């Protein structure tokens, strides 16, 4: 941090705001900075290198050419680093091209006798995996890699277990773990054209595993377009995973999965609807007491008569209707359409996460391909997207004090991840309710609580 501050001092500061947030991943960084991290050694420290100095434009000096070739060499070395697994504690997954299926056992095996209850499942022939999805328990049907020896911290937030203590991974999870070198995926025998006569060789009790590691390239080919995954969604998934967030598929992942989105907010909304209802009764009572005269043809908007406080006048002047996000939607809107649907639920690293019972997510993300959708979403698209998220009013203690924070937080919010060829931008969209923030009441409150003689001239800048 110290040096970004320094950099800000040394830079000609035309606009201070440009230096507030320096996101290193915004621009290509010099890979020489990475060489400070020693490879093929113990990774006790893995601090992120500092921002490198760059030149303004190329000149024909040998000096510059040398630096450039050193940078490229550093990049080459970094990218050529192999993924290594210790033979004793490597995690091996097996690719299941037909989706989740119970383990296939030799019918002559002793195990099938021991597990009498499992025998019907075990009898299922290896080839008809598609029909057996129901027997695997609650594993997602898009899962396509299983792991028999799941020993890693990552499985606290990744994967789903079946009845045989195997963990099943969704395509994006498998690809992410393979990429970061935490998983070794093997080809299944059905995919590698095994000759029937050579089954016998040193078999390790698993007749599905061919023992051939899948390359990263093959894994991309197999997983990147599987089960609704596409490269934009995967960019978002890995990007957030790398930063430590927990990220899971939302019900809106599939195009036909909108049934669950309705369920999601019903529970949260119940309590608040009642509150709004009480307020509604109260306001209706008030309206009955003093009917608003919005007819300006007969006189001033504020009405003729005695006005004892400014609040009355202001409230009578507010004749423009506004949208109350807390009110229940009158008519069911058309469901959110792709790509403006929530496809990911994201949890902060600090949020305690349980795979079996995921808490309400910290963020909801919709993924948009900037190349395919070049315009700003329409109001109906945004409205449908926001309506698919639960009510999230600004209720924290900090926000109850600060008007601007409340407006910014809004009553519903969603994050749009806009992906342009691998570059991701995140936009937070929230439904602000200006109509609910009565400025005249604010002022009255402030005047009552503390006496301010005069707003002091604030020093410019920070």
């Amino acid at each position, binding site marked *: 941090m110290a040096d970004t501050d320094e950099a800000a001092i040394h830079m000609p500061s035309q606009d201070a705001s*440009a230096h507030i947030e320096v996101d*290193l*991943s915004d621009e*290509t*960084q010099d890979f020489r900075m990475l060489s400070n991290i020693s*490879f*093929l*050694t*113990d*990774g*006790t420290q893995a601090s*992120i*290198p500092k921002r490198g100095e*760059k*030149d303004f434009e190329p000149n024909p000096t040998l000096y510059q050419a040398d630096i*450039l070739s050193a*940078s*490229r060499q550093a*990049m*080459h070395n*970094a*990218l*050529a*680093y*192999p993924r290594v*697994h210790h033979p004793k504690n490597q995690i091996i997954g097996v690719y299941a091209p037909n989706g989740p299926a119970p383990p296939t056992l030799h019918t002559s095996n002793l195990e099938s006798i021991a597990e009498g209850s499992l025998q019907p499942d075990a009898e299922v022939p290896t080839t008809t995996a598609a029909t057996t999805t129901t027997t695997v328990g609650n594993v997602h049907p898009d899962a396509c890699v299983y792991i028999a020896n799941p020993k890693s911290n990552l499985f606290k937030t990744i994967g789903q277990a079946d009845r045989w203590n195997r963990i099943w991974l969704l395509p994006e999870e498998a690809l992410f773990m*393979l*990429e970061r*070198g*935490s998983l070794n995926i093997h*080809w299944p025998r059905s*995919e*590698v054209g*095994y000759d029937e006569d*050579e089954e016998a060789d040193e078999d390790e009790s698993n007749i599905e595993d*061919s*023992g*051939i*590691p899948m*390359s*990263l*390239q093959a894994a*991309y*080919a*197999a997983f*990147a*377009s599987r089960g609704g*995954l*596409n*490269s934009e969604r995967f960019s978002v998934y*890995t*990007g957030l995973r790398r*930063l*430590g967030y927990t990220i899971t598929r939302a019900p809106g992942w599939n195009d036909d999965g909108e049934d669950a989105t309705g369920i999601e907010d019903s529970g949260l909304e119940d309590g608040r609807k009642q509150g709004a209802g009480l307020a509604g009764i109260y306001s209706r009572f008030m309206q009955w007491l003093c009917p608003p005269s919005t007819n300006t043809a007969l006189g001033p908007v504020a009405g003729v008569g005695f006005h004892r406080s400014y609040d009355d006048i202001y409230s009578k002047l507010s004749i423009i209707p506004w949208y109350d996000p807390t009110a229940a939607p009158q008519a069911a809107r058309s469901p959110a359409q792709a790509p403006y649907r929530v496809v990911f639920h994201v949890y902060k690293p600090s949020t305690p996460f349980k795979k079996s019972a995921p808490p309400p997510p910290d963020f909801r993300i919709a993924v948009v391909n900037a*190349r395919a959708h070049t315009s700003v979403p329409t109001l109906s698209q945004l409205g449908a997207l926001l309506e698919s998220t639960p009510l999230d009013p600004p209720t924290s203690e900090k926000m109850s004090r600060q008007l601007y924070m409340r407006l910014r937080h809004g009553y519903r919010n969603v994050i749009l991840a806009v992906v*342009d*060829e*691998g*570059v991701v*931008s995140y936009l937070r969209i929230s439904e602000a309710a200006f109509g609910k923030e009565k400025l005249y009441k604010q002022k009255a409150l402030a005047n009552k609580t503390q006496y301010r003689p005069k707003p002091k001239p604030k020093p410019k800048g920070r």
Partner: protein
Amino acid sequence: MASDPLLPVPISYIAGSYFLFSIDAVTYLRREHHICGVLTGTLPQIPQQNVFLGLPLKLMPEEARLLVEHGVACIVDEVKAQREGMRALREADRRKYRRELESQGAHAMRLQTNRKEQQREAALKRVDAKKTAAAKKKAAAAIAVGEAEGEGNAAHQLLPPPTVPPSYPLFAHLHAEGYYLSPGLRFGCQYLAYPGDPLRFHSHFLVVAADWDEELDLMAVVAGGRLGTGVKKGFLIGGAAQPRGDESGLGLGDAGSVRTFSVEWAGM
């Protein structure tokens, strides 16, 4: 040191995107053809960060098209190639592949243990933890495998050149002028134009393409100019000068007919 890959370099077409998996191809195309792409993979040595990313390299359709037109690359249907390649794999190849990986792993383990011993001698007190490793060199070895059996049936897995957005002539023009181009969403434009390798230089221009007869909103020009000035870059707008009536031949990639204008916010 980097060795030059065999030409044409195969570009993998997976799920609507264009990927490069070979580090040699990535280095070569960057050095010789000014094609940088965007690294999208996780670096296995430091997986929990987003500053330095690893293979695969994702190419824009424009970049893939340009390389195909220059004859240095071809597009391969990777999904099909992988499936058929693995199906055609014979037992002998399989054994060989495993042995190769294991020997690479053993080599890595030796390297690591050697280095460890040196470290131990140098600083006995330092606690070393760690996994020695057997290994598997995924990306690089995979290329070898892919090529080994891909050769026979590579011909019918070639795909036509990528379809590109109408901004392609401007892209090709700037590339021909020696600029390195990358997707510009982070700075709110179509492309970022770098005067040299982005590893060492900051970008100079925010590039937005327009059709020759396109009506431009003056607000967009002002906004672009201010945006560019705000991040110390020029706002560059351009397009092909003649209507692209003749799609045949070099019509699309004809970089000579492109004109460019740079806009700066004067702030008077």
